[in-house]
């Protein structure tokens, strides 16, 4: 067995779990997470020569994984989708909030906002969004890319992008309010 193989095998044993948990955290899906980790090691094996030991193996593997995660969401965001995320159930014809839809709750007193619980609720609510909107929202936060660049990358207009983010956020916020803030009352 050559040296390269030995090293990669040791990486699998040492870092596979870490990478899996990271991918699971970012994708909220076991199958997707497993595929992403497998692909990470395939890429690492094929571009092993490029790893010059400048960073730690873990850092290098995580960066490969992050790129794969980004690509995963980019594909989903670009997916041609006939269904549109509707917000007409939240607003009246005149643009006012529909009955019972107006944001409420004493946000300021939530000073002890529990980040980790909030993240759980947020993850659940994200998973309720249709795939495409779920991906569009996540892409926004993943990189340092400016919104203009993301539009070009996804091949959509600024208005289109903005509308998608708006619709996703409207639903996300509502779900979070219902499941997090109202619970604490």
């Amino acid at each position: 067995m050559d040296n390269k193989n030995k090293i990669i095998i040791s990486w699998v044993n040492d870092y596979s779990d870490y990478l899996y948990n990271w991918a699971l955290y970012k994708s909220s899906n076991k199958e997707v997470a497993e595929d992403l980790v497998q692909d990470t090691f395939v890429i690492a094996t094929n571009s092993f020569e490029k790893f010059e030991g400048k960073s730690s193996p873990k850092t290098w593997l995580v960066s490969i994984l992050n790129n794969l995660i980004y690509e995963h969401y980019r594909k989903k965001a670009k997916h041609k989708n006939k269904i549109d995320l509707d917000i007409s159930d939240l607003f009246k014809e005149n643009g006012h909030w529909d009955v019972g839809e107006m944001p409420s709750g004493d946000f300021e007193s939530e000073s002890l906002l529990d980040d980790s619980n909030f993240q759980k609720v947020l993850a659940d609510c994200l998973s309720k969004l249709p795939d495409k909107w779920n991906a569009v929202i996540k892409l926004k936060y993943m990189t340092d890319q400016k919104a203009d660049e993301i539009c070009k990358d996804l091949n959509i207009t600024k208005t289109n992008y903005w509308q998608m983010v708006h619709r996703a956020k409207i639903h996300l916020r509502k779900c979070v309010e219902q499941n997090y803030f109202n619970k604490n009352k």
Partner: protein
Amino acid sequence: MKLMISCLKATELVEKDSLFGLSLIELFELRIHNYICKGCKLYETQSKYIDEMLIKKFSYNSLDYNIHQDEIIKNITNEKLKEKILNKL
């Protein structure tokens, strides 16, 4: 410029601001609306908080945030996955 924009428009402007920024007029319209409308003011606060939380979770830099807590990132051992990978090497 409308004196009073709708709530729907106000929420749209909040999101537009986070992506592309707003023109002076749009900013003015939003500020006036949110000064008067409690619901939309709350929408803005909550939307920004959600943004912060999403950045923490999805930004490539999230290694910088100390999020390696058991409740958020799990510590699962996946032996089957390891076997799968090793078998394909």
